[in-house]
């Protein structure tokens, strides 16, 4: 273990620097994060992820946000274990009928101010699963949605861009 730890000290971090402000929207958002979010949330958003019926593809990519390449926490964004600690609900999947009540309860357990981000094609309108007896539809059919991040599943970069955009909006309104 000692060797692995020592090696980590001599290697450069893998975390990818956000692109420069002049050539990417990501950098623009990353730069505005501090200014906008500090006002309301002290530069930090706590995220509670809720799988409301996903195939688990979206979860894999949300997990990837925590790896060394994307390192979500450097932006002040972090995942928390309870909706009571959360500012943001990150909801995936078409909302199944079997998960509707759980999603509503999770939403109600989240203190205000709060934002809901619907992640993935299914969360927008039920996607390929729309119309089934087991599916209510998109997340907006159950709780109010502030932002949609598309993709099947969205890759970590798309997720990051969406979350950073939310930071700006959450602080700006």
């Amino acid at each position, binding site marked *: *273990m000692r*060797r*692995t*730890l020592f090696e980590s000290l001599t290697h450069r971090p*893998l975390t990818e620097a956000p692109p420069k402000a002049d050539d990417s929207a990501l950098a623009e958002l990353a730069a505005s994060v501090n200014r906008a979010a500090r006002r309301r949330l002290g530069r930090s958003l706590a995220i509670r*992820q*809720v*799988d*409301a*019926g*996903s*195939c*688990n*593809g*979206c*979860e*894999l*990519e*949300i*997990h*990837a946000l*925590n*790896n*060394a*390449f994307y390192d979500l926490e450097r932006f002040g964004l972090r*995942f928390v*274990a*309870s*909706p009571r600690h959360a500012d943001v609900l990150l909801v995936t*999947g*078409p909302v*199944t*009928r*079997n*998960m*509707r*009540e*759980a999603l509503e309860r*999770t939403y109600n357990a989240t203190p205000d101010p709060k934002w809901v981000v619907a992640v993935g094609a299914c969360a927008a309108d039920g996607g*390929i*699963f729309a*119309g*089934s*007896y*087991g*599916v209510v539809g998109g997340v907006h059919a159950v709780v109010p949605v502030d932002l949609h991040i598309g993709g*099947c*599943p969205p*890759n970590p970069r798309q997720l990051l861009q969406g979350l950073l955009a939310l930071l700006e909006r959450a602080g700006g309104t």
Partner: protein
Amino acid sequence: MASLLDIIPQGERFAHHRPWPRFLVTVEGWCYAAAEIARGRATLSGLWGDNSGGPMVHMAMLDDTTGEIAVISLPCPAGRFPSVGALHPPAIRLERAIHSLYGFEPAGAPDPRPWLDLGFWDVRFPLGANTATRTDQAPYAFLPVEGEGLHQIPVGPVHAGIIEPGHFRFTANGETIARLEERLGYVHKGIESLMTGATIEKAARLAARTSGDSTVAYGIAFAHAVETALCIEAPPRARYLRALMAELERLANNLGDIGAICNDASFSLMHAHCGILREEVLRAAEACFGHRLMMDRVVPGGVAGDLPPQGPDLIRSLVQQIRLRFPPLVELYDNTASLQDRTAGTGIVSAEFARQFGAAGPIGRASGRGFDARKMPGYPPYDQLDFAIPVLTAGDVNARVWIRIREVEQSLNLIEQILVRLPDGPIANSLDNAAAAGEGLGLAEGFRGDVLVWVKLDGLRVARCHLRDPSWFQWPLLEAAIEGNIVADFPLCNKSFNCSYSGHDL
């Protein structure tokens, strides 16, 4: 030599069912086969309802040693069939699901409670001939646990991590778990109802989204089923590209699981390093196939896209990198006593349970059941590739980690062989020229175990499709494995299983 067919009573054989036979049986024949499975003469591989040609139940069985597979079908015009679960516990949840979805009653079943139907659908028996409007349903009764000093801990469906939803009801005595009971079905999307009447293209997209982490495995199993039903074959190059994608998927998932299991023992160093390797596999997959999870890249008839010119070199350098950086992590795992203290001896699955339930993947292989669909019954191109199936017998979390470590090494070897042998030629055959339409059974080995897909085609549309995730036979074993362990070790055990919720709930 004994054959699987010996335990199937003589019955009419369906002419258009491929590649393994399907027989129509009587009630007596059904009961005989169920009793033989319960005696261990065959492994239960699937049990599902069907209403596409009158009410019927199908049971797939497998001979572990020869790889033979057969399906028997019992019409149940009165909506009843003899319970298999009464003789063979692994069938219980499958039967409960058949009842909840179709309304067919397993006569003599030991557990009449619904499964998948949590009381929220507008209708009861949504896939049956007689869907019923929902009337008030009695609250779900968890199994009783009696004794002094017991308390219950309800967990879920919304869990603490970034994980799929399910409900776990623990009954504990102090820290020690006396009973765990799972209640699943929260992510039931009605995939099989959406399949009915769908075009093959749409059905393939649904199959690819049954369990996102196994999207390639589902794609291959579905393609196998459709291709055999249509009597066509994917071209050799497509077979190799499928195997390449399947091994990349297995590699990414096993790396992710090894790290995540250690993380649940609070050893985040492994998690961080395995997470880096996993990410690099996904990036290579995106560069080569245009999608990090390679979703929709396997299609019936072949594959959706070819490897770009720089693909082989890119993947070779990925393999080289992992070969360089993975062994120190294995050493780290092996030499960290505090981590071993958590994983060794924790959450033991007995060899007997693994055999009885036909547990597949790392769960079966850590408990002495070496079944792997790539070897047995086998499918191209694995018959031309050299690889071993690691098997251990300890059955604990540690053994499940080691199986995954060995599988990472096997996948790396397989990927190199595939790149060397990758034949030239077309990557897909058209389905339009198919001579026949019938029924097909497809099997593919995902990182979790064998995925079984049964499809009945009506022209180029799906009349009925059943998808059986390996998790069906693994979830019940988690309940057994956790008994007598402490509550704090549940996340560790659960992660070492890593069963699919979505694949199970459908």
